[in-house]
């Protein structure tokens, strides 16, 4: 016959059992409540902004808004085709100027991080990503707008490209570093050269992440206003359709027409939003809300398309 022995420690915890349990439950639920409350606080502005923009902008959105350029101030109607086209032109130019050098620089940085050039590149991208975007605008104003004598979509594209460069270099570099090094060795062990390995093994493996980086950079750049103030100026009569028709009538070649498209002041969605919102005409203020909505949808669309593309690619890769 054995009496179950109770140690001194067991006696002590038995005595405190209820108090400890009560306290623990209280602290636990309190912390959970606090975390929930803060989550709510963080989510509210997000939905508020989205909801308010949809509410205010949705009232004005119609088909005309997308297919017409601006009417003279004070008149009703008209659209923001000029700003949509301008944004697309600037974004396209920015992508062309920033993606090829950004990707190649990232390959270099991932391959030779400790060479002088690699260190300089890392330092440069860090500094560049910290430079206020308006300073980049000012810089491009000084090196392009002043010498050329006029504002242009080209200058806007260069400013946006500079703005996108650090994001593209950094995300591409990070994605390349995530590719297992055995994959690289597998290719080199077959006798492949470094560039061949980078191009046909590393790049495809990292492509999803790299594309995501591009789109993040594009989405961020397409919402920027400051670098455009000094570079594209704004142009309410910018109309690519009209430029092409005009060019066709005058029998200009393709390069002349492209020149007209990029080498004149253009407009952009955020710039238009900013200008319209401070004009005394209620029509224009209403339009600026609609522009905000279009901008939001544009950025959202870029993100959704990117995700869809990456998903299908992923599925195809895994057979």
């Amino acid at each position, binding site marked *: 016959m054995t009496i179950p022995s109770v140690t001194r420690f067991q006696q002590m915890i038995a005595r405190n059992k209820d108090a400890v349990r009560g306290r623990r439950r209280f602290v636990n639920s309190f912390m959970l409540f606090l975390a929930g409350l803060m989550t709510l606080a963080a989510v509210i502005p997000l939905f508020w902004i989205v909801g308010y923009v949809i509410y205010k902008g949705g009232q004005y959105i119609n088909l005309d808004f997308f297919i017409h350029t601006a009417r003279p101030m004070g008149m009703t109607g008209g659209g923001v085709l000029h700003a949509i086209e301008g944004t697309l032109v600037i974004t396209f130019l920015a992508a062309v100027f920033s993606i090829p050098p950004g990707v190649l620089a990232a390959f270099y940085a991932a391959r030779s991080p400790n060479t002088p050039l690699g260190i300089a590149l890392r330092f440069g991208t860090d500094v560049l990503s910290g430079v206020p975007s308006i300073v980049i605008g000012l810089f491009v104003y000084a090196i392009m707008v002043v010498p050329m004598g006029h504002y242009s979509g080209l200058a806007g594209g260069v400013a946006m490209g500079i703005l996108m460069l650090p994001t593209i270099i950094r995300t591409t570099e990070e994605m390349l570093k995530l590719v*297992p090094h*055995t*994959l690289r*060795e*597998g*290719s*080199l*062990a*077959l*006798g*492949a*050269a470094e560039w*061949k390995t980078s191009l*046909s*093994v590393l790049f*495809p*493996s990292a492509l999803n992440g790299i594309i995501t980086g591009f789109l993040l950079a594009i989405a961020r750049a397409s919402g920027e206003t400051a670098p455009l103030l000094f570079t594209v100026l704004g142009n309410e009569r910018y109309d690519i359709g009209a430029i092409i028709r005009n060019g066709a009538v005058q029998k200009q070649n393709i390069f002349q027409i492209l020149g007209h498209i990029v080498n004149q002041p253009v407009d952009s969605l955020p710039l238009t939003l900013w200008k319209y919102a401070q004009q005394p005409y209620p029509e224009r203020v209403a339009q600026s809300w609609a522009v905000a909505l279009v901008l939001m949808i544009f950025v959202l669309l870029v993100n959704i398309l990117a995700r869809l593309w990456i998903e299908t690619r992923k599925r*195809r*890769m*895994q*057979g």
Partner: protein
Amino acid sequence: METINANKVEVKGLSVRYGKFRALAEINFAVRTNKITAIIGPSGCGKSTLLRSFNRMNDLTANARVTGEILLDGQDINAKGVDIVDVRRRVGMVFQRPNPFPKSIHDNVTYGPRLYGIRNRSDLDEIVEKSLRQAALWDEVKDKLHQSGLSLSGGQQQRLCIARALAVEPEVILMDEPASALDPISTLKIEELMHDIVRDYTIIIVTHNMQQAARVSDFTAMMMIDDQRAGRMIEFNDTNVIFTNPKDKRTEDYVTGRFG
């Protein structure tokens, strides 16, 4: 003729340093043609470093320095004027973890041949079938050659990597623990295919698995670190001798599992 080619690779006084640290010290041994040579030893004793010396993969490590000679058919692969691409074509490698490229099965196998300028479609198709058959994978994948190599199971992926290495018709195949990430059945398949292909190739395998070394290899090299933490080859002999009658007490302790 037989005697001239009996040794595919001869290693003479090989040392590898990483900066000041000597990882391998004074390795001397010979790898016999058309035989499987296993390299065994505890973790960190330089097995992989030694293996990676045979196709100059150590060149990729920034501060690695190789001294001594590695003679492939009598020619030092580290000599001036030797084309590293040529060395790597003649000495293929299979890695610890399957590392198929994110490409189709077909393109994984043709990756090597394409590097050497083979572009003709039917030539490439022929190489694909031959290599996959050698790697005992053909029957499983012949109907899905254009699916991603990543869609295969781990064991199949590893055999795909073997096929990829075989596609450039190397003379020596280096295997760095090729089955350590695989299940027993996949391991068995790899071991069987090693037996099948060794007629045409010379195989050097690093393994942690003593039974595997005993099962597959003809010769075994036992490595261990000395008191300066440099890897040394303490015994090299017929696999039978290493596992039944080793000369060195440390080898005996290691192969019988008594090693601390």
